[in-house]
């Protein structure tokens, strides 16, 4: 796996953080939508876009890989997807 920060490292140095997903708005989503986001998985056979962390440096990044061929196609910093800070307003629950 080519870590954007540390270069190519053995796959055993990395932790998979799961699919890149948009989190539903906590204030307005239904319980069903929230359960769907928490538990249901696409579990795609093919190209996926995921969060990965280089364990030794705690550096999080994005990887696009093929879950059928086990090929890691692309890795890039999180800034490529998220350029603005997201504020999760707690408000009243």
């Amino acid at each position, binding site marked *: 796996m080519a870590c954007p920060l540390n270069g190519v490292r053995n796959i*055993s140095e990395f*932790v*998979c953080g799961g699919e890149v997903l948009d989190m539903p708005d906590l204030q307005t989503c239904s*319980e*069903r939508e929230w*359960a*769907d986001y*928490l*538990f*249901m*998985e*696409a*579990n*795609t*056979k093919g190209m*996926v876009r995921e969060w990965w962390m280089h364990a030794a440096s705690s550096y999080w990044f994005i990887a696009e890989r093929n*879950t*059928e061929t*086990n090929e890691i196609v692309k890795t890039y910093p999180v800034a490529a997807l998220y350029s603005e800070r997201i504020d999760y307003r707690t408000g009243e629950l």
Partner: protein
Amino acid sequence: MPWSLLSYGLTKQPKLRRHFSKRADLGNSYDVVIIGGGGHGLAAAYYLAKEWGITNVAVLEKGYLAGGNTARNTTIVRSNYLTEEGVKFYDESVALFRELSYELDYNLLYSERGHLTLAHTDAAMRTARWRAEVNKHLGVDSEVVFPDELGKLCPQLNLGSDVRYPILGALYHPPGALARHDAVAWGYARRATEYGVEIHTETEVTGVSVENGRVTGVHTSRGDIRCGKVLQAVAGMSSVVAKMAGIRLPIKTIPLQACVTEPVKPFLDPIVVSGSLHAYVSQSSRGELVMGASADPFPLYSTRSTLEFKEELAMHLLQLFPFVAKLRVLRQWAGMTDMTPDFSPVMGSTPIENYYIDAGWGTWGFKATPVCGKRMAEAVATGEIPDLIKPFELERFYRFEQVGERGAASVGH
């Protein structure tokens, strides 16, 4: 004088008896289509025929018979689980397994060995005590044992303190057993076909027809068929097949590797599992050590084997049994496990009418083969979900009513 053996040796063309009838042409329609010809699918076909008289059934298997996880597990049967729902469910399976060789008239090499879940930390001892008490409360034979008793149950175990995580005790479950995995599948398949069930191997389901929220048929690589009901039992491919019917599941497909050593004389009676060390081992009837470790660290639709698995397994197993260092690994393989967030299966109905699901079997599916076949057959035949499997319905996630069995799963964590 073994005359039959002598005459066999002298014949040029030995008489062979087919296990199952030759594969027929795929029909146009069936009452029930079972997608997946593994242990679960074949068991469901058997019970549908035997207990409910439903024989117009086709089992569709993409590859060779029971070549998926049924061929790849480490053959352990037990019911020492953590939750009331789990214990009751797996214990019915153990009860069925005990009589299964007689019921199927097929030798499953069922061998009650005793199952030891080693505890290396206070937390693990607490979980062992919890499981033992829940088990006892429900009539399942489990108890907590300490190093002195462990020394008698498994004299080969390294109980010394010269390791990173010394053994503090264990959960001892005498009914823990091993069964020949292929025999379970073949036994169910043979009896099912005797009742008239059709098994179609090398027949891949490529699509599911749904009309007005109800399943009406399936598309396969050998033609389309209409059907009244569908049961999906495809383990690692659950999400892929469910997607054909427009259903989403809480499943991640993660490889689980295993390996065997060369055969040696019998020395290990019990099945030994260490949750803390992520390693487990048993000695098969062939004398080979069948071993596994933790599941792969990321989802993958592959059964490839890695060096990391062997390194991790060896590192931990040699703490338990240092003397096996000289044994050679004969063979290594993997299965694709359908892991759920609560380490419990997904069984029952789906949002699509007449479309039933048996999935989410992760690393705990083989032991449930009989109870799953029996109860899913009941669900398909009656249209009612039996109480025993109701806690495992897909809807439970939307109610936040997970059945948390991570503490009782040997691996996957």
